[in-house]
């Protein structure tokens, strides 16, 4: 087991390295980074531009630039944000809690809603509840989140006046609409996946064996079936984190929620390259960490995976 964990950790480091290469190459996405950075100080002469290029170190070989950047990044120095004139880590540290709050709430809401829905739908296959939850899943799945967000806003904030329209000033009340919007897609998808794998597990030999032995239906359901049915869910949760962080881009824009999504979008729009690199690296770190957890969870849930 220890060996397994070490192996996974090594893999994670490789991924992080790969991600840093990709994050660093953001510099070159829009062509010459010099050009991107001087975009808002034109009127410079060619000499000025050369001088600027030299000062920024863009005239060095790419590999040297990368190692330099990586060296600083390892020490937590992602440079200064062009926009905010502040250390990038500091900028992110201010913004991250807002997104974490949304993403974790949305994930929890997603699980709380989708697991019972999926199980009930599977157990009562073909019933009203099955169909109702599938319709819900359908709506969630076929509605773009910008649209869903605007509709929820119109209904709950404008027409009914129950909740604030946007912002992050009223605690839980402010969170309800963004979290609903953000989790809607996941609820829909996860309900279906759980229903699907539940149905599959319920057909397995060991479930029938357990039933045959006269175990209580409830015990069979929870101890035997659900635990195995959650296996594909675990994979999805790891990936959900990525889609939640990505989904935050849309939701935060709609609800004017000052988190990482808005920060990233503005960094892209404002060509704040160092900030963008820092954001992407952070997303990546979270992701890698989450996937490590997923892999460990796998081994816990399904000992058969623990092979070597």
């Amino acid at each position: 087991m220890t060996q397994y964990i070490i192996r996974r950790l090594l893999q994670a480091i490789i991924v992080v390295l790969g991600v840093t290469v990709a994050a660093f190459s953001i510099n070159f996405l829009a062509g010459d980074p010099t050009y991107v950075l001087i975009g808002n100080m034109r009127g410079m002469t060619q000499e000025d531009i050369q001088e600027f290029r030299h000062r920024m170190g863009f005239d060095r070989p790419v590999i040297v630039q990368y190692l330099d950047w990586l060296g600083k990044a390892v020490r937590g120095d992602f440079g200064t944000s062009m926009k905010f004139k502040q250390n990038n880590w500091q900028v992110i540290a201010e913004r991250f809690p807002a997104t974490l709050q949304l993403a974790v709430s949305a994930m929890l809401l997603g699980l709380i809603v989708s697991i019972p829905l999926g199980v009930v739908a599977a157990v009562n296959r073909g019933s009203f509840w099955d169909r109702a939850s599938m319709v819900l899943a359908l709506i969630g799945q076929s509605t773009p989140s910008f649209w869903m967000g605007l509709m929820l806003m119109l209904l709950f904030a404008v027409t009914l006046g129950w909740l604030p329209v946007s912002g992050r000033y009223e605690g839980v009340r402010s969170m309800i609409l963004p979290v609903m919007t953000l989790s809607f897609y996941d609820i829909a998808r996860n309900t279906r996946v759980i229903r699907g794998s539940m149905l599959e597990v319920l057909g397995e030999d060991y479930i029938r064996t357990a039933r045959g032995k006269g175990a209580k239906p409830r015990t069979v359901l929870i101890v035997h079936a659900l635990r195995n049915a959650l296996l594909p869910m675990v994979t999805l949760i790891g990936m959900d984190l990525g889609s939640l962080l990505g989904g935050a881009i849309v939701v935060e824009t709609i609800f004017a929620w000052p988190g990482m999504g808005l920060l990233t979008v503005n960094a892209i729009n404002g060509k704040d390259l160092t900030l963008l690199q820092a954001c992407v690296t952070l997303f990546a770190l979270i992701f890698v960490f989450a996937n490590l957890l997923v892999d460990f969870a796998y081994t816990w849930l399904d000992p058969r995976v623990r092979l070597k």
Partner: protein
Amino acid sequence: MALSGAQRRRARLLSDLKNSPTAIFGIAVIILVALAAILAPVLTPYDPVSTDLLTRLKPPVPLKGSDPAHLLGTDALGRDILTRLVYGARVSLLVGIVSVMISGAIGVSLGLMTGYFGGWFDDIVMRLADIQLAFPFILLMMAVMAVIGPGLRNLIMVLGVTGWVTYARLARGQVLSLREKEFIEAARSIGAGHMRIIFRHILPNALGPIIVIASFAVASTIISEATLSFLGLGVKPTTPTWGMMLSEGREYVRQAWWLTTLPGLCIAITVLGINLLGDWLRDVLDPRTLLEKK
């Protein structure tokens, strides 16, 4: 636990279909949408890109102020919505289905093989997957589309190639839980080759969740297409797609609900059809549910 022969399966498929009204409904929806897409020029006299600013924002027919010439009304540029819906079916279906097929084919094959063989191959593929997943989708899209340029073919390629990870991981997870099963051992002990084991024994058993995810992916791809098109990174702005209609209409949601509701309904109904078909396929493709029913 041997699988039924191909013929028996086909026969079972058909008899199963007859017993499943939801599957028939799903297939009917898909056929209907596909027909609308193919017959678009026959179904409507209008050009989907031709504007007429004098008849803009007309509501659908039974409503007050509607124009009988435009059954489902017109959009902000006076384009006929029915026309755009049927033409949009073409592009949306094409984008959704083809890109999901591409990513599904890539992802499932890679996932099955990495899960089955493990080792360094597994390591490389899964690390690549992790690296790609670590980037927010929109950012990845913006990068790639900015380099290769907008357009229908490029969009399908990008959506197809970047979507593989979900399938790969899911398929791999399925293989991991399946490959030590007795029937795989059995197949191995009677000398079945790796490829045979993977594609004849593991794949059918792993297909359930994959089909469910794929049927959803068709929908989410149609929606991704909307987001990307609106960013100018999808199809050309003149190409009608449902997703494009949805995002174009959002500014008018308070005064002309039909601009978004109608394409939204089209997406929902099509997705419903695909899902019902997917559900049914899952049932009939999964040998265990077959056993259960016997």
